[in-house]
């Protein structure tokens, strides 16, 4: 059994309105040191396999097909 964590973020070139709103809130609270804030998604995926290479390949397919919309999002994952 492998556990993967997948991170999906809006591409750097694409506006992230949620991130901007949080950035504004942090500034208004006095956290002036905050530069850019980006909001993304965090997914935990349990995989019924012990084959890391296979898991990696399958995760890539999952991300490309469903978990991220590669028109506007980037993804990365870690396998524990």
């Amino acid at each position, binding site marked *: 059994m492998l556990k993967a964590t997948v991170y999906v973020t809006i591409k750097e070139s694409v506006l992230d309105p949620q991130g901007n709103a949080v950035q504004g809130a942090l500034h208004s609270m006095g956290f002036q040191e905050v530069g850019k804030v980006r909001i993304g998604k965090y997914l935990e995926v349990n995989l019924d396999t012990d084959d890391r290479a296979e898991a990696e390949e399958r995760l890539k397919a999952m991300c490309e097909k469903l*978990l991220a919309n590669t028109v*506007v999002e980037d993804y990365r994952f870690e396998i524990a």
Partner: protein
Amino acid sequence: MNFGVLVFPGSNCDIDCYKAVEETVGQKVEYVWHTETDLSRFDCILVPGGFSYGDYLRCGAIARFAPVMGALVKFAEQGKFVLGICNGFQILTESGLLPGALLRNRTLKFRCHSAMLRVENAGTPFTNQYREGEEIDIPIAHGEGNYYCDAETLEKLKANNQIVFRYAGSNPNGSVDDIAGICNERGNVLGMMPHPERAVNQLLGSEDGKRMFTSILNKWREQHGAAAIR
């Protein structure tokens, strides 16, 4: 002419679409459950608004893999008419039937009000009863209607005259180039964020959406050698 209205778990504008067809063109219309795999009896499919599969993950991301979507892609390839409204538009971009993606509104607000649209292309099967440049009053209701595509795709859309509607006046969601609706290269698939099915009677505040449906019937009759409707 036979209309089908797709119904996903969470669709909530399906009834409006069904009624709009009845009210505007009085043609045969039926609901099509998302598990259906045969769309061959239809001439036009409406992909309605709502929150398909709760829109968990992303708007339209899960619906895109519903069994009916394979049939819809084939349906579109045959040149039959597909109109995606709001969540339907999001599903069409997720499925690759239309380019680009829909992002959260720039203002982060869910916008629900009437909006003026400019008809940029009156030559599609969906807009032939409008005049080019005409401004029409069609309501919007969305939180993620911010159309995005990269610069190269935008150039292509412009070059092929695929931008069908733009917001006239203020842009409610921050979409690229004020885009409110686009079609595919062939012109038989249209996606738009505003809701024409909610503007088919003065009782609803506007009947400017009516002509989208009469346009579709008109085009279908033209293709099938029947008399056009006025």
